[in-house]
Structures are given as structure tokens and as C-alpha cells.
């Protein structure tokens, strides 16, 4: 469904992503794990169209989407929940959700209901400004906002970052639930343990390269991974 081939991305002189290739199967949860600075965010931002690739191709549903602008990528059905949530603090919760559906002109009330059923707290706070929510609520809002575009594939950049363990568990169970509804998920995490537990397929990134890949359940028992990322 989704495939990256030989992707290179530079920032000025810095090679942030060097020749990575991977694919995401429809309906699966795929995770990209790795230390800080490995190039995970850069990869997602390139897919989303925020950063231009130096070379390589990105294909989605049989169509080349390399170099397209962010609005067309969203239009094709790929959304990014950015690192640090990036909700709009002076828009209300409801407006934040509505703006997620910016490109749609059909009725969004069903999707709004769905998001509210996934995150009942957002419904209670729909008239509050986004900036007044707690970190966990903001992450829920960021995910809900992305769902409002009705994506085929949703990319999440470190959704567990800075959240309390209990909230992290909530977020991961929501990720599984969204996936059950048929949305393909590309998940970037430093929290390798949680990510590997939910992932069908996992890729490990180190300094711009993919150094290891395998089923989530396999990598979780891999000795190198245990040492490097699971702190065991």
C-alpha cells in the first residue's frame, strides 16, 4: 500500500536520512523506532510533504507522491500527528477538530461523533481553548484532529512523549482501536517497548539508516534491541 525506496533527505549539509527503504501493508501497524536524532521525524515530515527529499521515491496506493505539497498528501489520505502535538492553542477543541477536516466538504458529524466516542474527554471540553488542555488531552486532540480528515494511513510522531505511563497506555489502546477500524498506522516512537508490543512490523533507525527490521514480536526478544532500546 505504501512504499519508500532509497530515500535520502538533507538539511543543508546534514544528511538526516540516508538511503532508507521500507513498506507499510494496508491495515497494519508499522513502527519506526530509534534514538533521538536518528531521522525518524525527518522521514515522517518528508512523507507529509513538509520537507523535500533529495532523492528516492515514495509511493502510496500505487501512485508516486514524492515532492507533493502537504495539502495534496492529506487529500490522498495520509495525515501526520506531529511531534509535540502542535494543537492550535487559541482555537477551541471543536475548532481544532473541524480544522482537521479542512479539505473535506461532506458532512463531518459522523466523524466528530466517532472521535468523541474514542475520546469522551474532548466532548466534555469541546468549548475550551486547545491551549487549556493537559498534555494527555492535547495528544488525544492531536490524534482526533488527524482522524477528522478520514485518513487511510495515519502517521504519529512520538505520541507518548512526555506523558504519564497511565496516559501512555490509554494512547496505545486507542491506537489499536483506530487500527481495528481499518486505519493503517505508521508509528514513530522512542518508547520502543510499547511500540513493539502493538506493531505488526518494526524498523530500527540509527543515524539516518535502517539497521534492523522484523516483526514487532520478534524484535522485542532480540538481544541487541533489548540492550539498546529496552534497557534490559
Amino acid at each position, binding site marked *: 500500500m505504501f512504499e519508500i525506496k532509497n530515500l535520502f533527505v538533507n538539511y543543508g549539509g546534514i544528511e538526516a536520512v540516508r538511503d532508507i527503504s521500507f513498506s507499510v501493508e494496508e491495515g497494519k501497524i508499522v513502527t519506526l523506532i530509534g534514538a533521538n536524532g536518528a531521522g525518524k521525524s525527518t522521514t515522517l515530515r518528508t512523507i507529509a510533504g513538509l520537507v523535500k527529499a533529495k532523492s528516492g521515491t515514495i509511493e502510496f496506493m500505487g501512485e508516486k507522491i514524492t515532492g507533493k505539497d502537504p495539502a495534496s498528501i492529506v487529500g490522498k489520505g495520509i495525515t501526520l500527528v506531529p511531534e509535540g502535538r*502542535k494543537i492550535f492553542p487559541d*482555537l477551541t477543541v471543536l475548532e481544532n477538530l473541524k480544522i482537521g477536516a*479542512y479539505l473535506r466538504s461532506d458532512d463531518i458529524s459522523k466523524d466528530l461523533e466517532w472521535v468523541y466516542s474514542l475520546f469522551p474527554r474532548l466532548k466534555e471540553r469541546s468549548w475550551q481553548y486547545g491551549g487549556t488542555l493537559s498534555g494527555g488531552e492535547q495528544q488525544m486532540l492531536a490524534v482526533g484532529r488527524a482522524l477528522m480528515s478520514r485518513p487511510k494511513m495515519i502517521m504519529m510522531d512520538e505520541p507518548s512523549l512526555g506523558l504519564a505511563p497511565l496516559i501512555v497506555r490509554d494512547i496505545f489502546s486507542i491506537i489499536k482501536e483506530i487500527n481495528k477500524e481499518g486505519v493503517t498506522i505508521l508509528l514513530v516512537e522512542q518508547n520502543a517497548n510499547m511500540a513493539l508490543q502493538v506493531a505488526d512490523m518494526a524498523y530500527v533507525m540509527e543515524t539516518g539508516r535502517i539497521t534492523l527490521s522484523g516483526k514487532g514480536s520478534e524484535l522485542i526478544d532480540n538481544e541487541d534491541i533489548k540492550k539498546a532500546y529496552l534497557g534490559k
Partner: protein
Amino acid sequence: MEFFHQNLSYFLSGISVGGQYALIAIGYTMVYGILRLINFAHGDVFMCAGLMMVYLSSTLPFTITIPLVLLLTVLLGFVIERVAYMPLRSAPRMSVMISAIGVSYLLQNAALYFTGGLAKVYPEIPFLSNSIVIWDATTRVVTIVTPFLTVVLVILLTLLIKHTKIGMAMRAVSRDFETSQLMGIKINRVISTTFMIGSLLASVASLLYFTNYASVTPTSGAMPGLKAFVAAVFGGIGSIPGAVIGAFIIGICENIIKGGASIFGIPGSGWTTFSDAFTFAFLIVILVVKPTGLFGEKAVDKV
């Protein structure tokens, strides 16, 4: 009451000029809000609207000229943004500012070329130019119309920003370009719309302002532009209500100073000379006391 009655004409023209500054100031504050750019060319766009009126009304009836001037000014704002600012979207802010200064001089020089440097007589617009007497004070209809029209336009603009899709996009883009793009918003479209709204309001302001001032020169936009800018800073740049309130305060204070001789019983008319100096002294005081202005956001820069 007697005092108010005697000086009514100063209050009236203060409120009227304040409304005109407000309409110009909105353009400064909205563009600043979205691009963090002080659009130095805005006052000159206002002047160009005045000149367009002069030239077009000499051959066309007002029913055509007025909408045409509004339309052409909107187009001018759009073109300036596309040509002079959009290519510099990722350049340092200083470069964009220099580009804005360049556009300002370009417009003034173009106006100089077309007018030959002569003051062009502004046409008498029927109804707006008519005289009326209010409580013994003689004034033009435009003086009375301006504050009402300003309030109506500000309400419409507020509704647009609060309750429409494009308004929501404007609020989002003024916060965060990148996340707005992730929502599928085409930021260049939103920025163009902002410039077009600012130019439309400046064009309306020019109709009202020049009707009271009788002539247009290539530098006619400089002073009202500068005062509207001061109003925007006073109100807290980026804030629309701030700009509107700031503009009314400056317009009224300026005219009270102009009328100072009679209001405070000081002989001679020397005070009028100082009304502009007052405006800028005012700005300095405000920036010292409250750098963010009346309604300014705290020093949070773009996140």
C-alpha cells in the same frame, strides 16, 4: 454640556478620522498577525486607491467607479503580496521588510509619474460630500457616516474570522504555518486573502478620508498610514479590536489637540502644529509603559 456643544465639531471629526485610521490599521495588524511583517506599502496602497478614484471618476459614473476602485485596490494588494512577499516566504524577516519598503517607494514613484507631482483634486462623491448641520456644527455627511460604516465593517470582519472556514484558517495560519499545512490548508491562499481584506478596507478608508481632504498627492498615504500603524501598535499589533480602539483614541486626541486653542482657551492656533508630534510622542510613551500595547499578545513569538 456647553463645553461639549462648543467643541462638537472637533469631537465629530476626531471620531471620523479615527474610523478612517481604524480601517487602515486593520490591514497593518492582520498582515502582521499572519506574517509578522510590517507592511510599509499599506499606506501607499491607500494612496493609490485615492488616485484611482481621481482618474476613473473623470470618465465613469460613480456607480461604476466606486466598485471598480474597491476591486482594483484588492487586486493591487494581491499582486504586491504575490510578487514582493511570497517569494521571500522562507527568507529572514528583515529581507521581507526591505521588500516592503521597496514596494512603498515603487508605488509613490509610480504615482509621481502619473500625476506629474501635482496634487489631484479628489472628486466630490454625491451624498458623502454633502454638508449637514448637527447641533449648529456644520460638517459633511462623510463625518457622520464614517464611524457607523467602520463599526459595521469591523463587525462583519469579526464574524468572518470567528465563524467561517477561511477565518478559522487565518487564525490557524497566524499561529503555526507548518501545522496548518498538515491540516491541508494552503497557506499562500490564506495569506493572499488577508492582504485582499486589508486592501479592501484601506480602499474604503480612502473614499472616506479623501472626501474630507479634497486632494491626493503621491505622499498622501504616508501620514495616515503612519498614524494607522501607530494605532495598531498602540492597540497591540496583531489584535483587530486593539487596532480599532487605538485608531479611535488617536483620531480623537489628535483633533482635541488641534482644537486645543479654543477648547482650553489658549490663544493662537499654534497647537495644531503639534498634533502629529503628539501622536508619535504618544507611541513612544506607550512602547515604554506597555511594549505589547493594549491588547497585544505577550512576547510569544511563533511557535
